[in-house]
């Protein structure tokens, strides 16, 4: 299921390492999950941009009704339709879609039951919430069903409309249930169009067209959740494409200095003479302050290295993105897309 190539961790500073695996290169649906707060949406957007390079067309779909894409790209809330939101390097384009559960259900009813006209009054009555509460799995079937439709849609030339679809999926805590459409179907009727739709989704998710990427920070809790998610995804026979480390600390400290710095044994004499040579008065407060900052930094770098080792051990290709000191604005998304491209995405 998972290819071995490129399974060695890439250090953030190395530029040309190809860690993007063949399975991900082949896939057309990229499901991006990760613990809350790891920058899942930002990374999904960067991935879409990187995949759209050189004239390709990529859809970035969100399914949690958070309008995270609109916020990130600083555009008004996305309607339930596919809109171009960004131009990628080499003339590619990224379109975005915010899948809306009510719209998806009503669209579905309209398609199969000619129920379009009653849609509004049903919505007012809370019908959609009712139906999705009655059968929680229905929600996921509808959301994944809509995404599947975008993956398989073909244009006049019978080629797929999208070269790739990137789904900003629910966080790791919910991703297994979300993708486990088979279980969701237990809630649903045994026959009929919804069943057919669910069957189609199961087939797509378990095919070579789909990979799941997990975004993580190099911190205990996100790493633990990532490792648990990998185990569960594998058990469900869902293909894990890569782990994407976000916000990794870039260090200028030499490997030999990390441990002493972390243990507050930094060579203050050397630091003082270095400062003096740059014309800065190395007074004790300044020295102590810089040493403390360096110590905090070194402790973090060492902790991140440990987290990285844990992740490397599971044998999933690892991509790495640096922490953007200037914040994750739109420019930052392009910067992250470049980092992904350097690690082989879209090549």
């Amino acid at each position: 299921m998972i290819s071995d190539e490129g399974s060695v961790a890439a250090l953030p500073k190395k530029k040309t390492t190809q860690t993007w695996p063949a399975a991900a290169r082949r896939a057309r649906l990229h499901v991006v999950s990760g613990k809350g707060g790891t920058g899942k949406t930002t990374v999904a957007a960067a991935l879409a941009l990187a995949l759209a390079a050189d004239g390709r067309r990529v859809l970035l779909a969100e399914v949690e009704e958070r309008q995270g894409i609109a916020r990130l790209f600083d555009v008004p809330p996305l309607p339930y339709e596919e809109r171009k939101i960004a131009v990628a390097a080499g003339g590619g384009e990224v379109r975005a879609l915010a899948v809306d559960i009510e719209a998806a259900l009503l669209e579905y009813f309209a398609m199969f039951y000619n129920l379009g006209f009653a849609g509004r009054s049903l919505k007012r009555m809370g019908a959609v919430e009712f139906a999705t509460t009655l059968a929680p799995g229905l929600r996921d079937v509808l959301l994944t069903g809509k995404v599947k439709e975008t993956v398989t849609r073909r244009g006049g030339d019978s080629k797929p409309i999208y070269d790739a679809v990137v789904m900003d999926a629910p966080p790791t805590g919910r991703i297994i249930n979300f993708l486990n459409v088979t279980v969701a179907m237990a809630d649903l009727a045994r026959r009929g169009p919804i069943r057919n739709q669910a069957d189609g989704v199961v087939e797509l998710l378990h095919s070579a067209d789909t990979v799941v990427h997990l975004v993580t920070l190099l911190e205990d809790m996100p790493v633990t959740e990532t490792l648990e998610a990998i185990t569960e995804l594998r058990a469900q026979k869902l293909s894990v494409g890569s782990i994407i480390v976000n916000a990794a600390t870039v260090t200028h400290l030499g490997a030999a200095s990390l441990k002493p710095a972390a243990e507050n044994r930094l060579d203050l004499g050397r630091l003082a003479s270095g400062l003096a040579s740059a014309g800065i008065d190395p007074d004790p407060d300044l020295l102590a302050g810089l040493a403390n900052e360096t110590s905090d930094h070194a402790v973090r770098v060492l902790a991140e290295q440990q987290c990285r080792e844990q992740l490397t051990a599971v044998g999933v290709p690892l991509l790495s993105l640096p922490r953007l000191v200037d914040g994750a604005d739109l420019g930052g998304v392009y910067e992250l897309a470049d980092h992904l491209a350097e690690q082989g995405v879209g090549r």
Partner: protein
Amino acid sequence: MMARAPLDLEKVLNDPSIRVVVTCGSGGVGKTTTAAAMAIYAADQGRKVAVLTIDPARRLAQSLGLGELDNVPRKVEFEGSGDAPSGELWAMMLDTSRTFDEMVSSNANADHAAKILANPFYTTISTSFSGTQEYMAMEKLSQLAATDEFDLIVVDTPPSRSALDFLDAPQRLSSFLDGRMIRLLASPGRGVMRIVGAGFQLFAKAVTSVVGGQMLADAATFVQLFEGMFGGFRDRAQATYDLLRSSRTAFVVVAVPEPDALREASYFADRLRAERMPLAGLVLNRTHPPMADLSLATTQAAIAEVAGSSPLTAAALAVHAERLTTRTQELRMRARLDRAHPDLPVVEVPALAFDAHDLPALRIIAGQLTGTS
């Protein structure tokens, strides 16, 4: 540089009239850690404190002695993790479905309750209705507060999609259970047509074909069984709401200096104010105040100068420069928040280099939160 009063948690947590502290904020901002740190501080001040957590990180749970879901508070043992507090620290992890079961059992006779608990539709509601967890957290708080066993209860709100969920959850759940849809679908044909016309019958048919007839039948039975309990549920929810609005409660919003978390915190502050809930202030976690007094321009010039001759100095200065840049971003976001909420007291907790998952680390955070370190 900020003229306003900072958030004084030392005062809040020592105030005997404040019996409930609720932490809220978006996921991943350190809500649970903040709740636990506040609880340990108050216990160290001699109070008997219970911290009610929803989904703590495993290591934090372990250090609080919470091995598994357990619906009653347990006393935290401090063996080998520093001095025991002069008060008492109790902790519990919420078991949502058990809390719901208990609520049903206490509102109905045994036979009736057993029927409800066995209903498949009830199982769906008590485990997967979005908002059940929030509702039950508030229910549990209400129960604990009613026992009057604790001087202070610190409640962590569930990691929800939106930080506002727990205020709305009871209302959403009861209007769902109470709602017309269930009745209409459960007993179609009676007066329905006048409301939505032929569309509804088609819809009912569509829903039946999607979720199956059995589910609807279960739902209908459930509604009948539940009838008569709504009143009790609503009264309890109202009582909890009144407690939250009283001067016995203090809300603490938790955020990190990142746009999404601050936006959420801002919504939350607005909402609490609109509901007249007692908002104590905002805890801004993981900030990066500089520890050395050296400007960015000087630092960068010095890096260029010593890059070849003293790599160690260059590296230390690069760490400092990055911290200053990060801090500039943080202050910009903070200023934006201050403009939107000029009266909101804020306390910053600088980022620790390590994860806080044991009692000594929680005490360090408690010291920063209360300005007593």
